[in-house]
């Protein structure tokens, strides 16, 4: 049976309503030449030939499996246990679309509930939603929450220059046209004390990153106090993997903790899909965007899961909802829940420690090279910046061509004052030999 939604009579009625006689008349505004253009498609080929062509295309890509990767800057090369993919690819999870009749999908709801619980454990926060697209959109939603918390009466957002540049751009995109003033990130030297100096009674939120874009670890307790003194919210954007080792941001009295979940069991995949964490203190739960799964008991006293507090969402509150984002990345949230379960508390700490120690070994070796200067001063996690004796693009070209190494991120792209500075990420995937190769390569390129 053909699925044709309109009858001929209905079509005629619609055409008459817009004042044209036929469907062709309706398309008169489209120039005839482009109405049915010749697409110049090649001859049909067999599946075998298609596979060969796609294979060749995919092999033209460089990936972290076939190179040695020291590139991070927001997406990190970590080991993903095979159990993650195994569970992820079960048809019940892999093919399911968003549960519009959610309580029928108890398995999906339980998976989201487990994810939320794990993220709360990791951050120390009271409530986690079912997730957002990525760290950048989660941070933008934090700004929207803070704006609504103040009922639109405050207009200033203080952003740390240590927040990922793309995340700051996303916040600006989300908040454009709202008459807000986003400050703090224009000067690279703005530390916590300087950011605290920008807080006033018109400030709705101050946001920082932990560890920051340069890998730096800072205690934001004093900044949290300063923010709360003027009624502003403290938002901390985290790398959740680092929380295996670091003090949870709830201890800074953070009101909102967001982050990108990619390091937890999600491959880099040339840039996505990723996962956005979003957690708040309980008092902000009704202003929170997105879905929220809760645990309950059914009529027979059995444990069950429901979408809870959905009155705050778009399908009930409509234009009055604080955010119209209900989408979550359920599959990626599941991946990170499985990852965290497989790693356990000790496993996660071990990965974080490996990253930390290997990065510190690398920093020490590179910092000792002639022509290279370690930019980071205080504590850092698994990423650090170094000033190179030559432009970063030249250094990276040499590392790739001569050593098969994907070098670091060129910080001059985002921070003009950091021209010739490279951001290097080291994870548990990098062996000592690989780090030594990187150091040797950097040493050599300095003299070329």
């Amino acid at each position, binding site marked *: 049976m053909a699925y044709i939604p309109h009858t001929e009579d209905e079509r005629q009625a619609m055409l008459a309503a817009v004042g044209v006689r036929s469907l062709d008349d309706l398309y008169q505004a489209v120039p005839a030449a482009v109405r049915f253009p010749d697409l110049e498609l090649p001859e049909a080929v067999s599946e075998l030939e298609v596979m060969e062509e796609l294979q060749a295309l995919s092999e033209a890509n460089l990936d972290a499996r076939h190179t040695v990767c020291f590139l991070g800057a927001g997406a990190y090369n970590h080991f993903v246990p095979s159990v993650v993919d195994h569970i992820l690819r079960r048809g019940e999870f892999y093919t399911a679309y968003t549960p519009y009749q959610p309580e029928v999908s108890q398995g999906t709801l339980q998976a989201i509930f487990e994810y939320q619980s794990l993220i709360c454990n990791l951050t120390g926060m009271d409530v986690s939603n079912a997730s957002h697209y990525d760290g950048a959109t989660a941070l933008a939603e934090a700004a929207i929450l803070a704006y609504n918390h103040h*009922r639109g009466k405050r207009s200033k957002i203080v952003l740390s220059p240590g927040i990922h540049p793309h995340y700051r751009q996303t916040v600006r995109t989300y908040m454009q046209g709202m008459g807000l003033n986003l400050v703090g990130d224009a000067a690279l030297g703005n530390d916590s004390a300087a950011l605290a100096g920008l807080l006033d009674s018109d400030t709705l939120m101050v946001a920082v990153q932990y560890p920051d874009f340069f890998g730096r670890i800072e205690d934001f307790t004093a900044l949290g106090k300063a923010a709360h003194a003027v009624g502003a919210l403290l938002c901390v954007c985290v790398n959740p993997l680092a929380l295996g080792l670091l003090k949870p941001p709830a201890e800074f009295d953070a009101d909102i903790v967001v982050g990108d979940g990619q390091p937890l069991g999600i491959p880099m995949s040339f840039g996505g899909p990723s996962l956005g964490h979003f957690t708040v203190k309980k008092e902000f739960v*009704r202003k929170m965007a997105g879905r929220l799964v809760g645990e309950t008991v059914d009529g027979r006293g059995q444990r069950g899961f429901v979408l809870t507090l959905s*009155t*705050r969402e778009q399908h*009930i509150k409509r234009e009055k909802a604080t955010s119209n984002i209900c989408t979550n990345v359920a599959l990626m949230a599941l991946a990170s829940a499985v990852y965290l379960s497989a790693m356990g508390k000790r496993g996660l700490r071990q990965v974080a420690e490996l990253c930390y120690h290997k990065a510190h070994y690398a920093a020490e070796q590179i910092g000792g090279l002639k022509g290279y200067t370690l930019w980071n001063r205080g504590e850092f996690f698994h990423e650090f910046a170094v000033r190179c004796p030559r432009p970063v693009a030249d250094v990276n070209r040499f590392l790739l061509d001569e050593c098969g190494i994907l070098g670091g991120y060129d910080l001059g792209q985002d921070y003009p004052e950091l021209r010739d500075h490279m951001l290097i990420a080291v994870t548990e995937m990098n062996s000592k030999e690989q780090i030594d190769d990187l150091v040797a390569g950097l040493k050599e390129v300095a003299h070329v």
Partner: protein
Amino acid sequence: MEFPKDLKYATSDEWVRVEGKTATVGISDYAQSQLSDIVFVEVTAAVGETIEQGKAFASVESVKAASEIYLPLKGKVVAVNDELPGTPELMNSDPYGKAWMIRVEIADTAQVAGLMDAAAYAKHCDERSH
């Protein structure tokens, strides 16, 4: 269903108690029964703020729906019931008493005349339930 005779009512189901220059506002017995169990109340208006007639000053959520509550007459907010966020169930159990929501200084007394009395409001509710 109770409709106290000493109150005035708005078509959007708020009640108003006028005492001199001040008006106390809440939602009617009919409104609370339509919403069913109320689980969350947020008064978005702040003391000192002047709110126009017909503008939302609070939002109420029940297990069934989320609703905005509108101010039936223009006024400057002089008091907000701080008990409600902690005990939203008062909205169901005592809509005309402990669940008063906001108190305003009436800006235009002529607007009082535009409200319904108990009998007219009872009729208004009756018409909608058929």
